[in-house]
């Protein structure tokens, strides 16, 4: 038994597959589905910020996709300069530049995970599980940075003062009531992470007996 065989884990015999098809297809379906959800999430906003103020009766909305911002970006940039908030262009430049590639890699790892019937599968699935956590942590870091690096020469910098916009939930900044919510893209990524975790459990349930059997046979 080569090292590669050990890492890839046992193959399922034709008879076993015919007898317990569901047992082996379930983790495959969960990993594959997660990969699809992740790719789909690229096209949907991850984070949605709405701002309301008396002179904006329809509110302002910013939709953060993994690689760009949409919505009332120009208007909000215009308002940000009063408070001294940095330009959106300068935020998370690295993250935005690699985001789409990184998500495709995550999905590719999940697809690759289908080949592994051993505990090594964890290596290929864990990034997808950790991705939403990483996204939230990174967003929080940037929000903190924005709120704590105000341009002191801005007209309202002192009046507003340093602050950290909440990553999710309501807040008040000057005359604005803001509400930050996870977007559908983030929810898909979260669902993918959960599905991948559940898939791991079924993966272990399906393949561990085979691995043990193989080890016993040696």
């Amino acid at each position, binding site marked *: 038994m080569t090292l590669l065989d050990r890492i890839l884990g046992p193959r399922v015999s034709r008879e076993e597959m015919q007898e317990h098809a569901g047992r082996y297809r379930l983790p495959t379906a969960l990993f594959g589905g997660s990969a699809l959800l992740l790719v789909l999430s690229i096209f949907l906003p991850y984070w949605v910020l709405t701002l309301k103020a008396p002179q*904006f009766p329809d509110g302002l909305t910013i939709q953060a996709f993994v690689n760009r911002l949409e919505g009332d970006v*120009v*208007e909000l940039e*215009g308002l940000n300069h*009063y408070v001294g908030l940095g330009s959106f262009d300068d935020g998370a430049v690295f993250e935005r530049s690699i985001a789409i590639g990184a998500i495709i890699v995550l999905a590719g790892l999940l697809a690759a995970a289908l080949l592994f019937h051993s505990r090594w599968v964890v290596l290929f699935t864990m990034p997808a599980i950790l991705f939403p956590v990483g996204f939230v942590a990174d967003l929080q870091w940037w929000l903190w940075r924005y709120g704590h690096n105000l341009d002191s020469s801005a*007209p*309202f910098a002192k009046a507003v003062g340093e602050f950290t916009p909440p990553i999710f939930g309501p807040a008040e900044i000057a005359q604005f009531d803001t509400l930050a919510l996870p977007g559908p893209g983030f929810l898909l990524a979260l669902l993918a992470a959960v599905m991948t975790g559940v898939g791991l459990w079924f993966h272990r349930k399906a393949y561990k007996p085979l691995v043990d059997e193989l080890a016993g046979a040696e």
Partner: protein
Amino acid sequence: MPRRSAWRVGRSKLILGVGVVIAVMALIAAACSGDDGGGESSALGGSAADIAQARGLTEADISAALKTYVPSGQQDEYLIFSSGGHAGQVFVIGVPSMRLLKTIGVFTPEPWQGWGYGDQDTMEILEQGRVDGNDVLWADTHHPALSETDGDYDGEFVFINDKANARVAVIDLRDFETKQILKNPIAINDHGGTFVTPNTEWVIEGGQYATPNGWEYAPISEYESEYKGMVTFWKFDRSAGRIDADSSFAMELPPYWQDLCDAGKLVSEGWVFCNSFNTELATGSGDVGSGGEAFEAGASARDNDYMHVINLDKAVGVAASKGVDINGMTVIPLQASIDEGLLYFVPEPKSPHGVDITPGGEYMVISGKLDPHVTVYSFDKIQDAIAAQNWQPDQYGVPVLDFDSVLEAQVELGLGPLHTQFDGDGYAYTSLFLNSSVARWSLGPPYGDEWKLEGEIPVHYNIGHLVAAEGDTVDPDGRYLVALNKWSIDRFFPPGPLLPQNFQLIDITEAPEAAPDTAGMQLLYDMPIGVGEPHYAQMIKADKVLDHVWEVYPEIGWDPSTMSVDPNAPMAGNERVVRNGDTVEIWMTLVRSHYTPDRIEVKAGDRVIWHLTNIDTSKDATHGFSVPGYNINVSLEPGETATVEFDATMDGVFPFYCSEFCSALHLEMAGYFLVAPE
């Protein structure tokens, strides 16, 4: 003035209050049916009843207030586009609230919109209205015409004429700005405009006081031969949003004084109707003491004047083949119109005003101010009379159709009938100048059974035109009517001897039986107009305009004069100042709350070309640009670009600033224009 201040109750509170009163009254009426409702103020409860009682409001007042009150945040159902009279502009008014929404700068400079105060595009449009090279910066705007599709308002454009100088303007309702002014090259004054054909192919401008063609000189003794009447058909290019002067033409008419016109529609589409007065060819009383007749007597001596019946469809071809060039305008000579069968006359009661076409296009309704009737002509009968050549020539050889053969009906309404509009229920409404009232009358078949007067409602005072909701289209809405009263006498506080005009809103939804005293009509509201004397107005469902209107320009760097992005517009990041010899060219952006750049230094005598773009894109984030001493004020609406050009003739330090309150740091939105002495 303690008594007066006690009356000062907020209007919104009052109307909310009276709303409660009405509701409670309805409850009481329901509770004691059979009883007449009592109306004990103690039973009405609350402050609403107290307010109504304290202000002495009648039940009719309360219902009028409830019908016109539009709560904050809600919008009016209809818009009126009204001529601005001497203001030379167009007013936009909401109905039923009668709130003024905007005064659109047209022929006259208008500072708030930066109309004619340095913005080159606006200066050039105003220059299009020059007469023989001379600025004419006032106008007597008379008759606005909304663009139509299939005979119904489409909410895309408004046209307006200037009676005093025979000019026509085009306003685009995407941004409510004037795009074009045309000076009529053959006439010095007009009246019968603007009216549009059912698909706005043509904008009609009829003449008024006859003059020699092209405002040349001819002695008054040659009035009969050298003075001319006219009607001009301006070709409208809808896709360009402009009138195409080169494809337009005019018809020479006898020197009768043409008055109002209207385009036929549906069955009468392709024909145009104008009326006239002074078919007597009166030329005034002449020198003092000569014993001649004044115009008012001379021009109304005969019992009849002539309705002009014009075959526009046919005239288009004749203009191409037989038109002659006068001052650059193609004009069909009178003899050609007679020979080709383009022009017929129909006797009409003397000194008429409106010629108004019924919604289906079957009838032409004419009011002779000095005859108590409206006279209704049948289009079919006119066609029959033309086919049968049932006519006599007038003094110029124009066929005059036999009156009796084309008459459909005459309805006696009252004194001084002027102008008629229609609703969707078979009623017509005619202003009665001398009676100071609006008459409501029923149309005969196919609208109703009988041509008959239903009754009238007094208005205050001396009504000219009237306007009903979409009341001159193929599909009138009814609902509201506004009386455009010339005098207000005692209706408002007298602000000196020059009194405002009075727009009176009237509810015409009820049938005549609902209120026999006023034929079902109810007076709702008086709106003073203290800016000029409007003549005609049109009322359109607001939704139709809302479908087209922009709240911000579609892209940053938008040039309203071309309705496209100006490739030379300053944009964020490419602001700069370039000196080229004695010319200093500036590309400046405006955004809340700064100019970039905000300091400009030139030398006295330099030519300054100053490009500006408002790069804000929020609704209502308009910036101004004003330079003291140089008569410059520009309004830059979100996304708009404009250019100002001037010679820096005065040296000194000129703080320029944003003249439109834009933000919390609006006062700080300023800069210095420094002109160093030579």
